[in-house]
């Protein structure tokens, strides 16, 4: 037996042994000083009345949090809008993104790359540009969309897309999904292309129809990609700000306000304590939701 570098290396140094903590210390110190400490410091400010109107900063206990969770204030609506936005955009983007990915993976034979590029184009447009574009397209009186609907005789569904408080948030979800679906499609497409064709051929030989093949082969093997997509969409949805700022700025009234627009407004009004309290809550939600989803979707050990 000749000299085996892997074996040699493996035998002289234990792979599973841990490096001494001193190796990681410099990085940990930097991370701690510049990331952990300021973050914790930020959370401490959530319990103060820090504002731009006074030089003093006083500890006020849970006052900011009580204000946020008081039903008479508008903040509870910000939470429900954020959650609604997140859940619905996850569903739309994943379902449509998966459908497009399947279509472009197998269904469409000609100009595949052209379609892929076309669907991806909205992703590279700046969000503010998309927002302004759709403000104009969805204008109830002069917008392209309603003009088109009227031209084909569908006046009934020509609505005040961004200014009717009952549908404004859904219109924004549509705009956001239009922009984001290409990104999701690309991830899922990459996932689909890692599934070996043999499985489908074997299933075909066994008599499985298209639906069964999708359900028993594609979906389970696509799970890692789907879980990444869900986590990304969720963290994105909970932190949504720019598209709302650019299309409705939280309006009409408070109909489309979300947590991030609330935080932005609190800070811009100089209510730093309140803004920090809101962002601390968002931080906790992100932490719990992100951890929960990763645990839920991570592949379970195969039981023998």
């Amino acid at each position, binding site marked *: 037996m000749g000299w085996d570098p892997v074996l040699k290396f493996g035998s002289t140094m234990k792979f599973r042994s841990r490096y001494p903590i001193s190796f990681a210390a410099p990085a940990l110190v930097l991370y701690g000083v510049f990331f952990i400490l300021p973050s914790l410091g930020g959370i401490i400010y959530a319990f103060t009345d820090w504002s731009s109107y*006074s030089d003093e900063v006083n500890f006020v206990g849970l006052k900011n949090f009580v204000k946020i969770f008081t039903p008479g204030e508008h903040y509870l609506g910000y939470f429900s809008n954020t959650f609604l936005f997140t859940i619905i955009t996850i569903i739309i983007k994943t379902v449509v993104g998966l459908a497009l990915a399947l279509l472009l993976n197998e269904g469409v034979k000609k100009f595949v790359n052209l379609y892929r590029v076309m669907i991806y184009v909205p992703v590279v447009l700046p969000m503010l540009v998309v927002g302004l574009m759709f403000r104009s397209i969805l204008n109830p009186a002069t917008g392209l969309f309603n003009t088109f609907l009227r031209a084909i005789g569908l006046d009934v569904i020509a609505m005040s897309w961004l200014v009717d408080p009952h549908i404004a948030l859904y219109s924004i979800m549509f705009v956001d999904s239009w922009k984001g679906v290409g990104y999701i499609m690309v991830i899922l497409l990459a996932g689909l292309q890692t599934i070996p064709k043999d499985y489908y051929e074997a299933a075909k030989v066994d008599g499985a129809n298209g639906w069964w093949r999708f359900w028993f082969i594609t979906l389970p093997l696509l799970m890692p990609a789907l879980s990444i997509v869900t986590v990304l969409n969720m963290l994105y949805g909970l932190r949504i700000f720019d598209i709302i700022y650019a299309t409705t700025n939280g309006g009409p*009234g408070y109909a489309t306000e979300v947590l991030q627009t609330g935080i932005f407004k609190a800070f811009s009004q100089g*209510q730093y304590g309140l803004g920090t309290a809101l962002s601390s809550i968002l931080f906790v939600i992100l932490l719990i939701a992100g951890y929960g989803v990763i645990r839920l979707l991570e592949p379970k050990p195969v039981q023998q």
Partner: protein
Amino acid sequence: MKKVFLKSFVAVAAITVAGLGASTAFADAKVTLTYQVDANWIKDGERQLAKKFEEQTGIAIDFQIVPADQYFNVLKTKLNTGEATDLFGGQSGVTDLTLNYNVEKNAVDLSNEPWAKQEDPIVAAQSTVKGKLYGLTYWDTLGYVWVVNYNKATFKKFGLEPPKTYAEFKALCQKLKDGGVQPLYEPVSDGWHHVLWFPELGPRYEQATPGLADKLNTNKEKFADDKTMLTDLTELKEMFDLGFFGKNALSDTFADRTKAMSDGKIAMFMAQSAFPQDLHKDYPNISPDDWGVFVMPLADNQLLNINPAGPTHFIYSGSKHVAEAKQYLDFLTKPENLQTYLDSEPQFFTLPFPGVKTKFSPELQAFMDAHKDARGVVYQTQINYVNAQWMDIGKDVTAMFTGTESPADVLTNVDKRRSDFAQAAKDPNWK
């Protein structure tokens, strides 16, 4: 060799000392006043006057212009670090003076300046804290009023006259609407314009409840308890519900105002008194004379709403050139210089000093004269913590339009935010 070296050293030293002496003498002769100002507040007219001032006195003005969106951050930082310019620009208004600029600490008392007694008292009051005048408001704050501009031809066609009460206003709007003309253009989508219908009627609230402003500022009265304000908002909501603002008010924008008003399909627009001039600039075939004005008649208001707060010059208390800065302000307020400034600025009608030749159209002049004794100060300037929440009030009023809030809710929310601001500012009246 040693001697030569010594001689040349002495010569160099002598030249250096002489040079230093000369430069000190030069610095003594020529003072440069630094003046930090918002880009929107500095007009060409003042730059020209500053040049003239330099020619006459040798005192130069160094304008340090800061973009509007950064202005307050830069100014506050400089004031807090003690590095402010000799003169600084600010917005007058008693709340701003104390909250934003802390003038009692940061600005020089100008009460005894020659021009102080000349300035229109309603304007000077906005730069006055505890009886001391701190700023010179060098702006047209009196001629620029928010009024209802109406298309005279349309009014004539429908046989209408400017209304005196809300009932008349409502009937007039209904008549226009029935005749296929949209009564008013109201750009709600910008979030600020539709708010004007509410705090601009301060004079009316004050007339209905004398002393209300003081009571509100000392926290002895709440917005939510005032019936006139409730009436104003209820009527505003009614106008929206009756479709007087058109179908697309929620998506209409202020930027489209001249386009919207250019074709006669809309009869009225609540805008600044210079709106017909704006319209004429964009649509030269429309003459400013084709337009008339009347005060906002909600809550039966017949008083003219003046917002006397405007861009104001302050002298920094830490300046080394307070005397020169005072000299500059004195120069700006000389009658001939006031006139030069007014004439050079197309957007100004008048200045808050007596004796200037105003530029009002005869009709607008008549309107201003008619309201000379029937005017008052708007509430965003007169009442603390209102201007700061302008966009929030906008959201509430929009929510009121769409039915998710009631007029009373809007007032309650104003009170809540005032209380928040006051507590943040450690206002003793809110303890």
